[in-house]
């Protein structure tokens, strides 16, 4: 059991990080999109390991589905014939340094205080839903407004107006 969960975790972690690395390193946008998809799905797997089935589901639906599609569309629409060779900018070494630096801060921070550990458990959907719609009602409603804003904004910005013939 132990070994299995470990095996699964490591596998998923490798997939997640690998996908992520693919996104940030590859020279080919399409590959990047696919790597993103991979990483997101692997993340859903991680949720499963954490017994967060609902979130895993959401993850697969929203990311695996919607997000990736949108991204691919965006890639298609903005194709400038320069796809095979998208390069990084000049400051990538600094970027790497910053990233490593942050990692060097985060890891010891996590390492130094880990509260005593318990078995991961999964919430019942009902509890989740309950707290979502009672205690978290206000954020929920505001979030809906945020979505509305995003919607309206996306429409008026992206749609072709009179200014382009």
């Amino acid at each position, binding site marked *: 059991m132990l070994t299995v969960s470990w095996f699964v975790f490591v596998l998923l972690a490798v997939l997640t990080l690998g996908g992520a690395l693919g996104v940030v390193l590859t020279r080919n946008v399409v590959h990047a999109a696919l790597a993103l998809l991979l990483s997101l799905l692997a993340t859903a797997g991680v949720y499963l390991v954490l017994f967060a089935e609902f979130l895993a589901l959401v993850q697969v639906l929203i990311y695996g589905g919607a997000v990736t599609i949108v991204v691919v569309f965006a890639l298609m629409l903005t194709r400038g014939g320069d796809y095979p060779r998208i390069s990084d*900018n000049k*400051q990538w070494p600094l970027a790497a340094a*910053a990233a490593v630096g942050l990692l060097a*801060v985060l890891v010891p921070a996590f390492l130094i205080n880990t509260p005593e550990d318990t078995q991961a458990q999964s919430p019942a959907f009902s509890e989740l839903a309950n707290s979502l719609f009672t205690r978290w009602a206000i954020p929920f409603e505001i979030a809906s407004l945020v979505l509305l804003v995003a919607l309206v904004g996306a429409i008026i910005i992206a749609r072709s107006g009179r200014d382009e013939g």
Partner: protein
Amino acid sequence: MDWAWLIPVFCFAAAPVIVVAGRFLPGKGASLSVLAIAGGFAMFWVVLAGFLGAGPASNDCFTSVDTRALTCAFSLSWFQAGDVQFFWGIVIDPLAVVMLGLVTFVALLVQIYSLGYMHGDPRFGWYFAVHSLFAAAMLTLVLADNFLLLYVAWELVGICSYLLIGFWHERPAAKEAAKKAFIVTRIGDVGLLVGILLLWREVGSFSMADAFDAARTGAMSEGVATAAALLLFLGAMGKSAQVPFHVWLPDAMEGPTPVSALIHAATMVVAGVYLVARAFPIFQAYDADPLLVVAIVGLVTALMAASIALAATDLKRILAYSTISHLGLMMLSLGAFGYTAAVFHLLAHGFAKALLFLAAGSVLHSTGEQDIRRMGGLRRVMPLTALVFSVGALSLGGIPILAGYWSKEEVLAAVGYHRNAAFLVFALLASFLSALYMARAMFAAFFGATKPGLEQVRDAPALMAWPMVLLAVLAAGFGWVSFNWPGAYDGLGTFLFFGQAHGFKFTWWLGILSAILAIIAFALAVLVYVRGADFHHAARARFALVIRVVENKYYFDEVYQWTVDRVVLAFSGLVALFDRAVVNDLAVNGPAHFIRRLGFALRLHVTGHVYSYALGMALGTVGLAIFWWLRST
């Protein structure tokens, strides 16, 4: 006598009235000015009478302990500054009375003379306004009972002299002369002011009486006494044109001649002598070292000026140098404890020199000529002027029984008694020289053959004549006031040192010696300028170098000019440059520019690329996280 303060007030009142409303008054206000000074002169007699009448009994009057001179003081508060009270007040003692007489009388005569002399000048009214102001200031100076008031008057006479020297400021020479006169005297004034403040610091009051008591009783430390005396003397040197501050007086002759007569011969220039005489107790305090300095300076001045006068050819300049030389003699006499002699010579010289200037003025007025080499034989065309000039010259030259003779003899006597032989020898030399140049001027100008072009000139008008005559009388006969008239009055000295027997003592051998010298001098002059003997050319040839030095007035002006141009102005130019280049451009604009540059440099960190913004944030994040962590543990 309580009304003595009115004397200056008359003139003070007159001046502004003339400036503002002069043009509506008769004679453009000149009449007012003359009236004021005349009133002053009248008041002088009242005061004199009152003073002679007053005894220690009368209020405000007391007999000071050492000189035992009767002094009457009237003082009232001027203003209170912080914890210091300033007063103005007047003191009437023999010295003040004597000076009052001199100033009011000469001023009156000169102003009357000026009515004629300045007639038709565009700034006629202005001239008299300043004259009244000067008279007022001079009288205040004479009467002041505290050093502050004295300094006030001192500066005021200075500015008046500035204004009158520069009266014809359209002449560049006059303009420069005025500036020079004021600045040179101002240098001395620094000493005076510092001295006054030093005395105040020591004594705690500006009153002269307090200062003198402190000096007498030893309340004043020797150091302060000496320093103060020397500083006061510095001021006196400036005003009385003692070497090396003498350079301004000859140039001051650019002013109208009556001005020279009044200010630069009879009154203002003797203020220095007056100051020393007034502050005598301080000079005398302890072992009277300052007086030695006074004597030396006086002697040097007398000799130097006399020698220059001998070489000068401009009539007024000759008189100016003679003034300097005689002022030197007075200082010398003071330096030799010859208090009475100094005052006596001051008076005698005052009348005589005023007379000489007025006479020279009348010559100038009639002939427009100042150079004695182009004069000659004037006695035929302007006999009166010639006569009075001769009287003055003889008197100053020290021809016996004339006033100058007695006063000079007194001076020599003082020197002879109190200073060593060297002083006496040089003093005799100085008096001989003074006789010589007086004789030279007199004979060269008025005797000998009449120079062509001078035949038609006419003598002075009455307005100018009468003052000269009056002065001539005094110049001739004034000596008699210093004699002892047993019973009635025993001598100027006794008057000055009230009660104390400072009677007139005639020192026979000195008297005869000086008389002989004077006569020799005049004889020489007659030989050269009337008989036309010219052995002096040989002398000129032999002492060419000396002569040139003397003719160039010992190069004082050149040295000063060089100093001003090359040192003072250069330095100030340097400072101005420093102010702009260093203080302003470097220290002020520098940081400002630096900050602006910094702004432009920092501007570059906003590259316009999103990812560099994000990079900044990322680095900031790492830094903030670490910082936070460190602070929290």
